[in-house]
């Protein structure tokens, strides 16, 4: 803005110059007035303008300048003093405002300039964001593709579908010309073309696995660009002049064994498949990074999907196998159950059938024994009973085949008289042997202990069996049985090489030899005799006492015998000179040495009760009623020996006269004609149950009728005469403990 020196002396102006000046001033003024208007107008229009008051300032400045120039118009002609003053004022104002504005602009212009730089900066940022947006979008696209691919791949557990889908989806996503999968062959030395995208049925191209390009691909887990001319990529005839870029990536084939518990599967597996992807030929397309990444991710996913498919296949196969096995096992189980049930039914029936008569025999024999018998008869009945007992044991054992077969046969150990066991067996066999006119001799060595610890019943069974066999198969001659303690040297018998007995202090080995003069055994048949399913032809003659069943039982007995001998840590074998020269059965068993010489034939319960029994009953007031003087004296002596205070009476009247609450026990001989009546009277006389004496019947016969009668009259017990000291002791103990004879 030029400062106009408008205060000049008034010369007669050049008319033209003045005119132009006049016009210019006018236009300047106009412009000066219109600029603020425009400014205001546009600022009003725009919302974002931070410097309004600067504008006002500026506007004022311009207006004043305009005013000045306007007023200048009047100064061209002669003007009054007022005009001059106004002019001056205007000029002064203008000067002030313009200076102020100038000062203000110093602040403002840098700001305005920085706005510009900010604008530039923002523009750059916007461009960057745009780029990043582009990238993200690309990644998202990739991710979407991968997800879609994965979804497609994983939506099936079928191997082939997986692979086919992979190729298809990849082809679609990446718009590939060709996509191929090479799988390693079984030998692992070649890669075979397994699937392609475009070709429907790939013929089995194979390439050796150790090509450098393949090694290159296999050694890295990235997608690797390979040459389109490599053998794996030359799949189809060249469609165009410039084949598209080819990328190959390895697909690990994971096995179940690759999945360790703690570590993620390291790709230490050697087996890879090769996936080859070809871009369309004659296109300028290149493999972008994100596309390569996509391919790598897909390859990994495929590997996992394949492994899952493989696992599933295997588990399905295993499950089918298991189901088959299950069915087979079920069938076998049902068959076994049926067999067992059949056997048990058979055993139960046989059990019952065989035990019923045995019951009868034993029960009746014991009943018979209770009756009055001549000594010969008694001996016979006792023999019957003993044999029946043995037979009962045999039946128990034979019929419990399952126990035998399970091997759960237990020994019944106890002390017993060894000598008498032998003698009993001989006594049992003697009648049968004498029928056959066979002489049976028993020789017990002098050093054979009289008592031993072992299973008496089973020893006798074994002996009976062995001797019985000897008798059975000897038509004439003699049976000799020897028993002695086996010495250490003879323990290791060369004929029984697997037998290694170890003697100790508490045990000795009993050796029993049963020699017969029967038909003998063919030496070739030795091993068969004592095995389960053996049959010795020389023994199974037609005349032998067994038919099929007999021989079967014979075999069973053998099992029993063997089992028993084994349980006793022993051994059994046969010797024979040959056919017709007789044979000797030898067995050795381990028996325990018994210190005490008392027979512990009593069952444990009785022993226990004997331990509880008092040995003396001091102060026990007892009354004995018996009409037989001798019996009376004996009973009294018995009770006195046990420490009782005894009163004896010989008649019912005397008894009733003398009985009182003080008496603890009354023994009444119920064989007396008024025995029972006395008992009744005693009960009537002393009615208070807990205070009245216990009544016990003494009788010589213990049949059921007597017992019932005693019970009916309310007696507390029955004792069989004659009474031994021990028996009396037990009786008194039981009475005092239980107030009854149990």
């Amino acid at each position: 803005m030029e400062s106009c020196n408008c205060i000049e002396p008034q010369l007669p102006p050049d008319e033209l110059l003045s005119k132009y000046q006049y016009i210019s001033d006018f236009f300047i003024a106009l412009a000066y007035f219109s600029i603020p208007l425009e400014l205001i107008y546009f600022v009003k229009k725009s919302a974002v303008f931070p410097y309004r008051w600067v504008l006002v300032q500026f506007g004022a400045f311009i207006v004043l300048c305009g005013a000045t120039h306007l007023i200048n118009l009047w100064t061209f002609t002669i003007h009054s003093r007022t005009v001059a003053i106004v002019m001056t004022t205007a000029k002064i104002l203008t000067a002030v405002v313009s200076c102020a504005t100038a000062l203000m602009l110093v602040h403002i212009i840098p700001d305005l300039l920085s706005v510009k730089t900010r604008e530039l900066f923002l523009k750059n940022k916007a461009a960057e964001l745009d780029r990043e947006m582009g990238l993200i979008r690309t990644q998202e696209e990739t991710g979407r593709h991968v997800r879609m691919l994965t979804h497609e791949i994983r939506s099936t557990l079928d191997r082939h579908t997986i692979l086919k889908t992979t190729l298809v989806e990849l082809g679609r996503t990446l718009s590939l010309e060709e996509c191929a999968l090479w799988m390693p062959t079984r030998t692992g030395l070649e890669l075979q073309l397994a699937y392609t995208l475009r070709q429907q049925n790939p013929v089995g191209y194979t390439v050796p696995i150790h090509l450098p390009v393949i090694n290159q691909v296999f050694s890295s887990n990235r997608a690797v660009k390979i040459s389109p001319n490599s053998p794996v990529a030359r799949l189809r005839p060249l469609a165009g002049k410039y084949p598209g870029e080819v990328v190959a990536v390895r697909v690990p084939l994971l096995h179940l064994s690759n999945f360790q518990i703690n570590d993620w599967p390291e790709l230490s597996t050697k087996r890879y498949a090769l996936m080859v992807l070809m871009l369309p030929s004659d296109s300028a397309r290149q493999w972008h990074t994100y596309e390569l990444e996509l391919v790598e991710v897909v390859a990994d996913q495929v590997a996992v999907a394949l492994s899952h498919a493989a696992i599933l296949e295997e588990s399905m196969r295993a499950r089918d196998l298991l189901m088959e096995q299950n069915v087979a096992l079920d069938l076998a189980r049902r068959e076994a159950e049926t067999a067992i049930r059949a056997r048990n039914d058979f055993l139960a029936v046989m059990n019952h059938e065989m035990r019923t008569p045995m019951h009868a025999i034993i029960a009746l024999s014991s009943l018979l024994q209770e009756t009055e018998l001549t000594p010969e008869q008694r001996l016979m009945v006792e023999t019957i009973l003993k044999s029946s007992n043995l037979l009962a044991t045999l039946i128990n054992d034979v019929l419990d085949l399952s126990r035998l077969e399970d091997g759960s046969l237990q020994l019944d150990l106890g002390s017993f008289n060894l000598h008498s066991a032998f003698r009993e067996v001989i006594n049992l066999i003697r009648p049968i042997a004498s029928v056959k006119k066979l002489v049976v001799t028993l020789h017990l060595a002098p050093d054979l202990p009289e008592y031993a610890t072992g299973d008496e019943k089973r020893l006798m069974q074994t002996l009976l069996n062995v001797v019985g066999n000897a008798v059975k198969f000897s038509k004439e001659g003699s049976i000799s049985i020897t028993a002695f303690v086996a010495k250490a040297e003879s323990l290791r018998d060369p004929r029984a090489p697997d037998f290694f007995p170890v003697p100790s202090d508490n045990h000795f080995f009993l050796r029993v030899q049963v020699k017969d003069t029967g038909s003998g055994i063919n030496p070739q048949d030795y091993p068969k005799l004592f095995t389960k399913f053996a049959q010795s032809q020389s023994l199974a003659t037609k005349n032998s006492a067994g038919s099929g069943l007999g021989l079967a039982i014979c075999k069973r007995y053998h099992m029993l015998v063997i089992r028993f001998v084994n349980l006793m840590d022993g051994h059994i074998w046969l010797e024979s000179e040959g056919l017709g020269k007789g044979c000797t059965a030898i067995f050795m068993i381990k028996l325990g040495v018994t210190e005490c010489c008392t027979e512990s034939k009593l069952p444990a319960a009785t022993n226990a009760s004997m331990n509880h029994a008092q040995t003396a009953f001091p102060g026990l007031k007892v009354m004995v009623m018996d009409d037989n003087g001798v019996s009376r004296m004996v009973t009294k002596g018995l009770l006195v020996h046990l420490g009782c205070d005894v009163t004896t009476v010989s008649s019912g009247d005397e008894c009733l006269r003398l009985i009182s609450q003080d008496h603890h026990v009354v023994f009444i001989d119920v064989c007396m004609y008024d025995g029972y009546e006395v008992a009744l009277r005693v009960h009537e006389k002393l009615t208070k149950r807990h205070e009245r004496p216990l009544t016990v019947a003494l009788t010589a016969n213990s049949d059921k009728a007597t017992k019932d009668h005693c019970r009916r009259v309310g007696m507390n017990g029955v004792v069989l005469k004659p009474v031994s000291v021990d028996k009396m002791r037990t009786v008194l103990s039981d009475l005092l403990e239980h107030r009854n004879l149990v």
Partner: protein
Amino acid sequence: MPLHHYRPPPNHGGITSTQQQQVTHQPPAMDVLSQSRRQLADYTNSLHRDGFLDDQFSQLQQLQDESSPDFVMEVVSLFFEDCQKLVTNMARALSELQAVDFKQVDSSVHQLKGSSSSVGAARIKNLCVAFKTCCDSQNRDGCMRCLQEVNRECVLLKNKLQTLFRLEQQIISAGGSIPM
């Protein structure tokens, strides 16, 4: 269920183990004593073996102690007295010319059986069993025969027991004690 096993009652006519134990400590150089003891043991064994005595007799011997040193002898004496009385009764009853009172004979036999079993006279007891059968069948001749046998047995047993007691006395007088 296993079958019930019948346990036979203790040895009838077998050798009892009690007789075989020589419990007492033998003082040195007492050959007479040990000889007497052996004699006694053998004799007792033989009595048992031959069935004259059974377990009950041993029980009686067990009852003999310091408080009743002659218990066995007393019982045995009483038994023989009883025996005599009963035999006489039975003889009288059986020699009745008219009807024999078998009931009385039966009760006497019953008594004798009781006594003999209390004492342990096994043979006599067994004879009583046979006797009873004859009584039940009212067989006079049978009864007579049985009675004669009983008488004979009683005498026999008496002699045997006297010998036994003599042996015991020998031992006692030699300073030992009778083994139980």
